[in-house]
Structures are given as C-alpha cells and as structure tokens.
C-alpha cells in the first residue's frame, strides 16, 4: 500500500494533465476490470463485477488530479510568470523547486531580492503576481526552447518516510484515494462495484459529475485527502483531524451534508471491525461528494478521508497506518452493503 501511494505521488497530474496517473492506473487495473473506459472529461471508469451484486449500485470515487502551477507568460529576461491550478497557499511556495511540463524542466520560485523589500512590505504575504519561476534561461528566446505557455508545473518533492510512521510527499491528496481504489480492484472483496478515477477535482469538482451521471450509482463513497490542523497553537475545536488517529469520516463539509444513513453505516463498520476512525471536527473544504450527490435524481454519498497536514503544499504529511485503516474500512463497507448473487 505504502509503495503504491509513493509511486502514485511521483506521477504528474495537475488538473487536466492527469495523463500519467490515468495511464499508470489503467495499465495496473485493466487485467482485473470487466469494463474500463475513459470518458470525455478524462475520468477513468472501471467496473469490476463480483460474485455478489449489491442492491444499490455502489461507486467509489477518488480524484487523480493535484494542485499545481501553470505558465502564463515569459518575460524578456526569460523568467516565467505563472498562475495556480487549484487552491495553493502562496505563503509556502517562495523558494521552492518546481518541475515544468512533461520534460520536467527544473526551476525555482523567486521573488524580489530581500534587500529591496521595505519594512512594511515584509509584513505582508507576496502576491502570486509578484513571483516568477527562474529556470536559469538567458533570455525569453532561450526559455522558449524548453517552455510553452500553458505548461504545467509541479513541486519537486519526492516521497520521504520519516518520524513515527509518517509520509511526506506532494499529491497525497488524492493519490491515497487512488491507491485504495486500485487495491480494492486488485484484491478487494468479490462484490460488484464501480470505480471512478476522476479529473479536475481541485478546480471545482468538475470531473465527478459526468462520471456519476454515466455510472448512475445508488451509493457513492468518496476517498479523499482532507486538511489536518493539529499543529501548535491551534485551538482544539479548530484542529479538524489528526494524522495517525485513523480514517476520517466527515458528516458535513462545504460541499455536502453526507447521507446520514451512509455515514452511520461507515461508523458502525469501523466500530464492528476495530478500524481506527475519527470525526472531521470542523466544517471546511469539499469533495467530489457534493457534485455526485446532486447528479441525476440524487445519490447517497459518504466519504472516507486521510488526514493530511500542509495539504496542497509541496510537503503534505500523512500517517502511513491511516492508509491501511482507510482501505480496510472501504473494503469492509463494501461487504456490509450485502447483496444478491450476481447473475
């Protein structure tokens, strides 16, 4: 599981550039799939038939895309102006190394030299429009040899295991969800289910609507990374959740009030199977659940999330043992849905 998460976190997948992630997943799960296709948006939809068919069609969903940067223009001096794709905390990106495009052209995020910054100016967070990416180009023409406008950039941040069972990587949100789904397809229970590896979640949960529309599930379980606030100085009631304390089961976020029945069943399955779980103790963020819930005549949604510190930054931090808890809960939930023998 850990190796799979690490592998997935190494792939490029800035929203709308999910090709590497999709290709990898497709190759891996195709042998186990009864049906597998890519839709117009780029979602990868997998149907795995099983010996048991749940009464209501079950769909799992995890997004393949990640937040990143996009090149908007090149200055005469050969610096790259860029924008963000998805929500990026601009406080943490200055001085970070990035890799641009499929060729992984190296660069560093720069800003005005420190001796030119006035006293007042130092108190505020620089705007993204004041930053640039330095790729060491001689001039505009030189930069144009390796960069095109519209190229994506990712943070140069390899997975590292550290401390008491923690993993640092970029894109844990939501390669952890992708990893859980891959494992469910490869070695999960012999139960009929659909798996939607979605695109463009980070820019407004755009891929999951068409995916759910096509699949038409009765129940959808979203597998996600969610923001952890358990750092020093945070009041207890604003910590949201903590890595290492188990699978996070949100009852409400900005995208949805999760179906009360599905949420209760997830809690029960966790309790019955001794799987560590925690509440999401703050209403923040959103997932594909909101969009899926309001597709067609409505879908019952639930979510199982991983607590991730510094989410959307170059160095996301999650607990490795939580990964197992999330997989086990997803797997046991599928079993708990019951069903009838598949024809």
């Amino acid at each position: 599981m850990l190796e799979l998460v690490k592998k997935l976190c190494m792939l490029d997948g800035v929203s709308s550039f999910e090709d590497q992630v999709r290709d990898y997943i497709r190759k891996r799960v195709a042998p186990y799939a009864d049906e597998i296709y890519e839709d117009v948006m780029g979602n990868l939809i997998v149907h795995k038939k099983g010996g048991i068919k749940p009464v209501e069609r079950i769909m799992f969903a995890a997004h393949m895309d990640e937040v990143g940067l996009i090149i908007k223009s090149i200055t005469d001096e050969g610096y790259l102006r860029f924008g963000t794709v998805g929500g990026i905390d601009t406080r943490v990106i200055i001085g970070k190394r990035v890799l641009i495009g499929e060729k992984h052209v190296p660069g560093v995020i720069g800003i005005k030299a420190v001796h030119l910054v006035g006293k007042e100016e130092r108190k505020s967070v620089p705007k993204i429009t004041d930053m640039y990416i330095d790729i060491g180009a001689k001039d505009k023409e030189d930069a144009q040899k390796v960069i095109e406008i519209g190229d994506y950039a990712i943070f140069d941040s390899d997975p590292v295991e550290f401390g008491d069972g923690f993993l640092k990587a970029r894109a844990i949100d939501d390669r952890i969800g992708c990893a859980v789904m891959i494992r469910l397809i490869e070695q999960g229970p012999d139960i009929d289910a659909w798996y939607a590896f979605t695109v463009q979640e980070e820019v407004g949960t755009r891929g999951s609507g068409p995916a759910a529309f096509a699949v038409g599930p009765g129940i959808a379980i979203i597998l996600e990374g969610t923001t952890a606030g358990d750092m020093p100085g945070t009041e207890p009631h604003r910590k949201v959740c903590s890595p290492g304390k188990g699978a996070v089961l949100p009852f409400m976020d900005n995208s949805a009030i999760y179906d009360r029945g599905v949420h209760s069943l997830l809690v029960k399955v966790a309790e019955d199977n001794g799987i560590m779980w925690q509440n999401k103790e703050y209403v923040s963020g959103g997932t594909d659940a909101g969009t899926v819930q309001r597709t067609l005549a409505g879908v019952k949604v639930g979510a199982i999330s991983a607590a991730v510190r510094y989410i959307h930054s170059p160095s996301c931090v999650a607990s490795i043992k939580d990964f197992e808890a999330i997989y086990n809960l997803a797997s046991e939930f599928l079993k708990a849905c019951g069903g009838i023998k598949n024809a």
Partner: protein
Amino acid sequence: MLDLFETIKKLAAIHSPSGSETAVAEAIADIAAPYADEITRDTLGNLIIRRKGAEGGKKIMISAHMDSIGMIVTHIDDKGFLRFSNIGGLTPAVLLNVPVKFADGTRGVISKDGKAELKDLKLHHLYIDIGAKSREEAQRYVKVSDTAVYATETYRAGDTIVSPYLDDRIACVVLLMALQSIKETKNDLYFVFSAQEELGLRGARTAAFQIEPDIGIAVDVTGTGDTPEPKSHMDCALGKGAAIKIMDGSLVCSPAMVKAFENTAKQNDIPYQFEVLEQGGTDAGAIQLTKRGAHSAAISIPTRYVHTPQEMCSEQDVKSAAALLTLFAANEISL
C-alpha cells in the same frame, strides 16, 4: 380546513435542519395524506406529494423547502462545551444568548468565549452550553455531528405571526392550504417539500430531475424594506399581499409566469406586490435550469428578521399567497 396558526406553530417546532428532514416530512405527509394521490420520498429526502390532473394539462412542480438552518456540533471540549458550525446562513451576532434544542430535546444556550470582541465575532468564537460539567457528561446527551435548532416559540403580535423558521415552514403551510383547497385540477401537480435548500437549493435540483416539470414554482419567504433605516431599498412590506418575484440571486422569473400570476391576482382581488430580492435564492432557480429547463417563478411571503430566532410575517399575506397559488395551479395555463 387546516388552522393556519396552529399548523405553522406545529411545523416550526419540529427539529429538521438541512440533511435531517425526516421528522418534518412525516408531519407534513400526515396532514397531506387525505388530499394526495401519491406520496414519496427521494434519495436526498425530498417529500413529493402528487395530485393527478386531467389529460394534457401542464406538469407543475411547486416547491417549498422543509429544511431549516441550524447548528451542527463539530467538537466537544474537556469542560463539556459544544463547538459548532453553521447549517445554512447564520450571523454570529444574532446567535448570542439564543436558546437552542437538539433532536432528543436536550436544551442549551449559545454564548461566546470571553476574549472575542463583539465587532469581530466569528462562528468559531461561539459555543453551546448544555449545562454539562465535563466532556463525558456532555457526550451522554450529544455527539459530534448532532444538530441543534432555535428553541423559540411561535406567537401572534398584532396581525403578524412571529416564529422561528417561518423560512420556510410558512411556505409549507401555503402548499398544504393549496393542496386542501384545490378540488379539481387541469394540471398534474407535484407538491415538493424540498430538502437542503438552505445549503444551496440542493434538494430541488434532484427532485426536478426526476419530475421533469413544464413549470416550476417556488414558495419561499423574502426580505422587506419596511423597517427603520432598512439596509436595502426593497419595496416589499408586511401586509401588502403575496409577493410575486421578479428576480433574486438564483433566477430571473419567467416573464410569462409573472404576468400570469399578476392576472390571476387581479381577476380574483388577491392583494399582491412585486419583489426584487438582491441576494439569496429559491428553489425556482434550481428547477429552471434542470434538464432542458422549465418555466419558473416564485411566490413569496414578505418576512422580517429572516434567519433569526424571531421571524415575522403577516397572516394575511400567507392567505393571499395560498389563494394565488391555488387559483393558478388549479386552472388551465397557457404561457
């Protein structure tokens, strides 16, 4: 005929914030049952009551949301105080010292932590005090994810009704009045008591997907400009009749529908006024854009102090709204 005041008093007291609408749905279904041809609840929890019409009539979806705003517990601290988040639009200053209740009857009061300044008050400064001495004691009554609603009463003041959750239980009463009054209809009527409106018209959208109406009508409360130094220049006032919506943040109403409402009101001497609401939205906005679209409009009940524990509306306006809806829905419609 149902008693308007007694019915709103009953419905407003039922614990059913967005996402937990079962209790109010059951109460409404009980009242509606004798007048319904079909009663169903869908995936999101919408209650759909159908009155079949004559062959060839229009399919009309009439929506009033049955959910209310409320609070949802996110954290219980060591001393037994409950931190919460909002379900729908809550203003922190309005919540100070407000009495609340949970589904099981547990009572409490909202207060703020001592350091928070009134002018910078945020929701995370507030907590619910249920009188517990510790986390363990609090957990005997409440768990994280439980919801609370205003525990204020429904009463009459002058010609008005004051109550929590007139938004939108008073419109549920309007739909029930229409359902009772319509003896025969040329149209195929779907009275939808929708779920999760307060979170962004969530229920009406999936209900409309299933029903595929020709016409969508929302009945909801709206603001007024009839109090001292009003913030907006809204023309609506209590007691001046049913408000025919022109537009709000969610839709521009079908001009043909607006005209049809106006004609119906004029011909039947029903007091009416027009409404232009700058912010906010109604289920009509969601219905209008579902599938290939539906002619959509709304009838509103002007209401003061919306989203506070003490909302106020005119009983006459409620009756006017019900009369307008009844006559429009029962008769042949050409747009």
